[in-house]
């Protein structure tokens, strides 16, 4: 994969774990298990106009993206959280969730590759 088009950057996670592969694998697996559930929840909350639930889910997901170096995606989720919290630009929320879903596809592919590189 082209290094320049990478969304994720595992250098922070690597420094945090002291380069321990088992820990890296554990965190990547946790994220790959939890993030699709969060995305699904965000879609459901948007459909049911539960802005408090959406804000809370986006809020919980946001720092995890930062730990994987996906700063752009973190900003996107932050935007969703802000719109839900302020109940402003509500028509933009489904668009931003779709944008995030596209980014997540790339993130998950990158992290799956990282798992293979880590020997898992």
């Amino acid at each position, binding site marked *: 994969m082209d290094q320049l088009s990478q969304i994720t950057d595992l250098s*922070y996670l690597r420094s*945090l*774990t002291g380069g321990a592969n088992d*820990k890296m694998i*554990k*965190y990547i697996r*946790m*994220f790959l298990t*939890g993030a699709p559930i969060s995305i699904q929840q965000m879609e459901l909350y948007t459909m049911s106009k539960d802005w408090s*639930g959406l804000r*809370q*889910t986006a*809020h*919980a997901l*946001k*720092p*995890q993206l*930062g*730990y994987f170096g996906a700063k752009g995606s973190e900003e996107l989720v932050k935007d969703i*959280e*802000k719109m839900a919290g302020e109940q402003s630009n509500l028509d933009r929320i489904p668009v931003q969730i779709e944008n995030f879903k596209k980014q997540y596809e790339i993130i998950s592919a990158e992290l799956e590759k990282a798992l293979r590189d880590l020997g898992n």
Partner: protein
Amino acid sequence: MAQKTLIYIVDDEPMQRELLKDNLEKMPAYEIHAFPTGEECLAASQVRIPSIVFLDYNLNSQVRDAMDGIDILKELKKISAEIEVVMISGQDQIEVAVNTMKYGAFDYIVKGEGAFLRAEKTVFNIYRYHKMAGDASRYKKLMIFFGVGMLIMIAVVVILQTKGLIRSSPSWY
């Protein structure tokens, strides 16, 4: 073997919880337990009172009607005022986190890349604070002990003087 200091972590987000737990477990003098809800932490605190609790402010991303961090903080302080609570919050809730200090939180940590290092430093700060408080208490007791001792000595000298049992100036004068 010395008893380990008990630390509880409360965070509803599994990865955040695990990252903090793994990071604090690097310190061998501490026994760490993590809980997804404040209610579980309160139940555990009734059985074994922790020294430190790292407490997320938002705790309802998984369980919608879960108690929030401030309510848990208040309940923990009812169990024991000695429990030191460190609030954890998102970047956008710093004001809320600062406000928790008035309910007795020791400090607050903002989630993000520097949070884990900050958590370690906070544990050290709590240890240092308690050590200093202990030292201050010991010095205070020592000062009172010497003060009372001095008063007793003066009283004895005055009594002996009034009874003429000792002279007011040393004999070599």
